[in-house]
């Protein structure tokens, strides 16, 4: 099946060349970072994680959302998802590759990466995060590939794949829970020290991931001969609607605890993000935009559920994706590290090389996604013909 990822139309080659260019630029920027050190990024002594780890956090959620297709299809035999479950699994693979690449470029000593396995430390959440992410990657690769191959050959999937599918369901929940535990167990970081971190992560993941899937499914229907099915898309829309409402509800639970208790070490981070602190307010417009887009998305999606309309749905999905990306991709790190445990405010703004590296990694993800989707869709088209 792999050959289907290599041969394609002119548009396909142009798209892959464009992505290849972005990857090359990103790699050049990474060599620059590797040579001069991570000081080429905007990170600092006080804000010691930035764009890279934020993208890891956000993308783990997108990867985990494959379970929103797998669970209804395999556990509840929801037939409408039968055609697109592969799109979920094949979305998880590139996002996990991006996650691990983001961890790699964040390391000060990337050549020592395997020390994580040479000196395994079960007490460290990072150790478990690496295990969980790699495990989920392998699960999706095996499940996605084998089921697609069987579909192509017109045979039933082998029996041994079933247990793997069942394992992948709680595993999806685990990858985002473990990622939340990276933050939620650290003393002295008031913004992160909250039990609702993992639930918030999961709810935003199950909003962001399926909304991306909807956009991808509509794109696939428009530009290929494969139709993921209008009912499947509307069911995904319901999932996104519930998830974004729950996500905003969880956010307000956190806001209540923080502001009603009035404990400064928890409040200061929210004040910094939403109102600014000691005259530093770089992220204030972003955070309000995120909150307002999230609320707007709820209105748009609820309307769409009553009056189904795919154009309106796309607007809702873009709003959800943008809102959750700002919340995790910008708010999570800046809110956690500012102010510092000594209550100094050092602001973080990513640098150009840092952004180019991040864009390059997204291009790696898109290249993989394009290749995998092309394989899956070619097989589906073949079967229809």
């Amino acid at each position: 099946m792999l050959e289907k990822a290599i041969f394609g139309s002119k548009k396909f080659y142009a798209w892959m060349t464009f992505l290849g260019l972005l990857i090359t630029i990103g790699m050049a920027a990474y060599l620059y970072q590797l040579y001069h050190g991570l000081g080429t990024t905007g990170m600092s002594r006080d804000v010691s994680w930035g764009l890279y780890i934020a993208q890891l956090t956000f993308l783990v959620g997108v990867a985990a959302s494959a379970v929103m297709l797998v669970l209804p299809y395999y556990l509840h035999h929801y037939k409408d998802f039968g055609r697109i479950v592969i799109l979920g699994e094949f979305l998880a693979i590139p996002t996990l590759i991006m996650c691990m690449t983001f961890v790699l470029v964040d390391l000060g000593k990337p050549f020592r990466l395997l020390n994580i396995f040479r000196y395994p430390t079960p007490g460290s959440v990072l150790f478990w995060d690496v295990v969980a992410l790699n495990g989920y990657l392998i699960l999706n690769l095996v499940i996605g590939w084998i089921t697609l191959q069987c579909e192509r050959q017109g045979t039933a999937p082998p029996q041994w794949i079933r247990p793997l599918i069942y394992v992948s369901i709680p595993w999806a929940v685990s990858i985002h829970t473990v990622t939340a535990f990276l933050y939620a167990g650290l003393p002295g970081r008031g913004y992160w020290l909250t039990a609702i971190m993992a639930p918030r992560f999961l709810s935003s993941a199950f909003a962001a991931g399926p909304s991306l899937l909807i956009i991808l499914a509509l794109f696939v229907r428009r530009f290929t001969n494969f139709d993921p099915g209008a009912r499947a898309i509307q069911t995904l829309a319901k999932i996104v609607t519930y998830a974004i409402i729950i996500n905003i509800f969880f956010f307000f639970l956190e806001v209540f605890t923080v502001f009603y208790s009035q404990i400064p070490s928890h409040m200061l981070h929210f004040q910094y993000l939403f109102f600014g602190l000691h005259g530093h307010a770089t992220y204030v417009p972003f955070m309000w935009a995120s909150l307002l887009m999230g609320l707007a998305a709820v209105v748009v999606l609820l309307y769409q559920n009553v009056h189904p309309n795919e154009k309106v749905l796309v607007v809702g999905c873009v709003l959800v994706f943008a809102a959750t990306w700002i919340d995790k991709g910008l708010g999570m790190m800046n809110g956690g590290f500012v102010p510092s445990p000594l209550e100094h405010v050092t602001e973080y703004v990513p640098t150009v090389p840092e952004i180019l590296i991040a864009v390059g990694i997204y291009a790696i993800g898109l290249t993989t996604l394009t290749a995998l989707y092309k394989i899956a869709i070619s097989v589906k088209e073949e079967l229809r013909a």
Partner: protein
Amino acid sequence: MEGSRRDFLKLAGLSALGLGAAPVLASASKAAAQTFGDDAKALKGTHWAMVVDVSKCQDDCQDCIAACHEGHNVPTLPPEKKRNEIKWIWHEEFENAFPEQPIAYLPEKLKGKPFEVLCNHCDNPPCVRVCPTKATFKREEDGIVLMDFHRCIGCRFCMAACPYGSRSFNWFDPRLYLAKTNSAFPTRAKGVVEKCNFCSEQLAIGNLPLCVRACKNEALVFGDLNDPNSAVRKILRERATIRRKPELGTGPNVFYVI
């Protein structure tokens, strides 16, 4: 052809074994002697701690910082790279050293007063808990929290975990910013985390920590908490002290007399 290749591999294997095994065997037999320092002279403790008597600290004095940073090859970064600086011991004002226990109507003598802050060598260190490679660890015999610069992968999880901001990362090659190098202590490479080591290298040769020795006013006192006659226990018996963020359960081992 096949024969000669096999012979070559055999030869290569044997010579590698010979070259590799000899030093390993030699070092194994001398393992005990490989510990740094002079075992007879070394200062031995079971629970090292420090007391900082802020009242004795002179406002404009930087002696302890200079002694530590010179002795440990801590680079001085130019002002435009201040956000990337490396600090083992430094000065903070009271409200930053103790943000969670503000004193209402802070006495005049404490306003703007420098408080020495450094690694607390916690009883229950969060940095050690989160490290994915055990590159940072708590030494069992005396409780010092140490770093293995050669094992650290530079993930900076420890920096997120430390509630005292005591850890620094080498964002650049630190050797570029060293005016002079102390050859008795290793320099670091870019990409690893570092912090105060309670002068484990000084204790090993029978010296008190560099900052303690550098202070002309004896504002810094070092000793063993498990020894009732130690200098630190003597002060703790007589004076009320506070520690930074004790409510987090980290068990900090730097005490402040204010």
